[in-house]
């Protein structure tokens, strides 16, 4: 029944999906935090940049962003991210595109987390003379992160699913393999079930685990 799987690197494709997810998650956590810091910063220009970035990026289809990394960044601006093989370049470009997109959502999640930190804490921090970066780093962000684990988990799951878009620039992840298999094998239902199951295995445990973490670390108020 599963003979047709011969010759397809199913695990390899899902491994690429996992790699895309992990690298992009790390990237968007960093860039998203910086964006959130910009959006609440005392420098008007940074606030403006953060707002414009989030509003533009959130409203562009991810597909457009991914294709643009290849056509615009790589082809035209010559950004090859230190790689010289197309497969590596495309993978890194996809990570970059996914990071650029996902960090807008991380930023918004964090910003709502920052809003949950009671005013008194910030006022107290300022009263003992902490500067803005210190307030953010020592008082606000640690609490904000703990209160947004739930929303961030959802962003992570959305990211896992969004990695399929990398197929648009030929990154050999799950969706590309699925399309290839559908074209070559007459096993549509079975193939679809396999890939659906693969994504269930990735997304459901993440959701359940981080849901548990969210409860564990939630700030009791």
């Amino acid at each position, binding site marked *: 029944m599963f003979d047709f799987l011969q010759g397809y690197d199913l695990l390899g494709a899902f491994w690429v999906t996992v790699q895309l997810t992990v690298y992009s998650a790390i990237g968007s956590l960093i860039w998203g935090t910086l964006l959130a810091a910009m959006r609440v910063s005392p420098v008007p220009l940074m606030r403006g940049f953060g707002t414009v970035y989030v509003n533009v990026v959130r409203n562009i289809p991810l597909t457009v962003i991914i294709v643009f990394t290849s056509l615009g960044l790589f082809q035209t601006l010559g950004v090859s991210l230190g790689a010289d*093989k197309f497969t590596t370049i495309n993978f890194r470009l996809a990570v970059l595109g996914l990071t650029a997109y996902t960090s807008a959502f991380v930023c918004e999640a964090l910003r709502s987390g920052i809003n949950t930190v009671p005013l008194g804490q910030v006022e107290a921090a300022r009263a003992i003379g902490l500067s803005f970066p210190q307030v953010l780093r020592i008082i606000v962000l640690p609490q904000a992160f703990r209160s947004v684990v739930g929303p961030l988990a959802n962003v992570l799951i959305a990211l896992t699913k969004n990695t399929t878009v990398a197929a*648009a620039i030929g990154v050999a992840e799950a969706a590309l393999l699925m399309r290839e298999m559908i*074209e070559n094998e007459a096993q549509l239902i079975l193939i679809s079930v396999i890939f659906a199951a693969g994504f269930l295995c990735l997304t459901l445990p993440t959701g359940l685990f981080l849901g548990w973490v969210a409860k564990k670390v939630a700030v009791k108020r």
Partner: protein
Amino acid sequence: MNVHRTCRTTVAVAAAVVLSFTSAGLASGASGGVSRAQDEDEITIGIKYDQPGIGLKTPDGTYTGFDVDVATYIAKELGHEPGDIVWKEAKSADRETLLQRGDVDFIAASYSINDERAEKVDFAGPYLLAHQDVLIRADDDSIKQPSDLNNKKLCSVTGSTSAQNVKDKIAPDAQLQEYGGYSECLTGLENGVIDAVTTDDSILAGYASQEEFKDKFKLGGFKMSNENYGIGVQKGSELQDQINTALEKMVADGSWEAAVEKNFGPAGYQNEPAPEIGVIVK
């Protein structure tokens, strides 16, 4: 008052949704009605919409290219004026289905004859012998023969067999980038991140003949495969013989040569002589 306002908002949104729904319904009603032969004079022909020189939808909403010229000639011979032709996009993957379902009368869309396809549809022609070739930058002297493609960066469209061909048989060390369309490949070729775009020479010549690319690109002139373009018709259709007759006449009266010159000429494309009907060059 506020409840009233809320209601109004609700109604406005509901109206907007209903409006968009009806307009969607109307539109799909207009475009979805794929009924052929409602008018005796009409003929539906499948062509490519995005291949300059072969079949291209221009900004005026008209169509140009070699396949379009051939199809128009055939239609005329079958008794249909150019105004009676209904053009339909025939993407590569859809061609057999379109014919089998009878959505189109015939297809002229860079359609190479092969055994697998011949099982599902019948072919008239061939009407053009094309070869797999590469398009390179005009100032690039490093690619003189197919084996020079080793260690070069090749580009083709997703799912095309031509690129895989080169990689498997001719230049195993070549790198392959696949995009959804040839335009993306050409941007890369122009920018220097791609060294060669590979597919049928007729398609490449069509691109290279465009005003914007004059003197920028050249064809490699490698004949890496034989592609016999045929006119696809439904299995067992009596159109096959009529189209063959039309094609013979087109070659005989010089219209074929004129069409080749018009569509591929500017790129310095060395076309093969008009193929003989029914003779497939392997």
